[in-house]
């Protein structure tokens, strides 16, 4: 797995030293991690402690969202599919599976990806809101 430093510009603020930066990015609880794209636009936010695997999955979910936003649908699908499969027990997995399916659809214009995604979410994460969101794609 690639290191955080190789994939991100890492910035750390402690509440005692940089309260103004907390306010600037509306960080109201700790720990909070925010992923910004290279233009400084927020793309993903994590609030509260997460175990290591959940944290790593959230980082990749954020990276996948940035790729998706840039219309790099193949890259987004790969990144998000990895979260969906390699971190399948993480809280990020259902959302990653959902967006991996959307990225596959957007990259191919083939709606079968949506149906496959809906079926997989219903089977693997039937209680998740992402399965409910995808339910509209079921045939």
């Amino acid at each position: 797995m690639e290191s955080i430093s190789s994939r991100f510009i890492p910035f750390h603020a402690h509440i005692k030293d940089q309260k103004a930066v907390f306010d600037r990015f509306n960080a109201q609880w700790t720990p909070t991690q925010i992923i910004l794209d290279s233009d400084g636009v927020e793309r993903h936010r994590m609030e509260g402690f997460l175990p290591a695997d959940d944290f790593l999955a959230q980082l990749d979910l954020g990276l996948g969202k940035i790729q998706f936003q840039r219309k790099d649908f193949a890259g987004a699908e790969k990144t998000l599919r990895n979260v969906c499969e390699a971190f399948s027990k993480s809280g990020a997995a259902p959302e990653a599976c959902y967006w991996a399916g959307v990225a596959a659809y957007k990259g191919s214009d083939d709606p079968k990806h949506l149906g496959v995604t809906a079926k997989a979410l219903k089977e693997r994460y039937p209680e998740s809101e992402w399965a409910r969101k995808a339910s509209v794609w079921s045939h």
Partner: protein
Amino acid sequence: MAEISWLKNVDAALKQAKGTGKPVLLDFSAAPM
């Protein structure tokens, strides 16, 4: 996991991101120092 060289200046981090095309990871903490 490799040691992370956290920046302490957020504007410097944003400038680096712009220059490199990398995303920024902002970490906000209140843990005892």
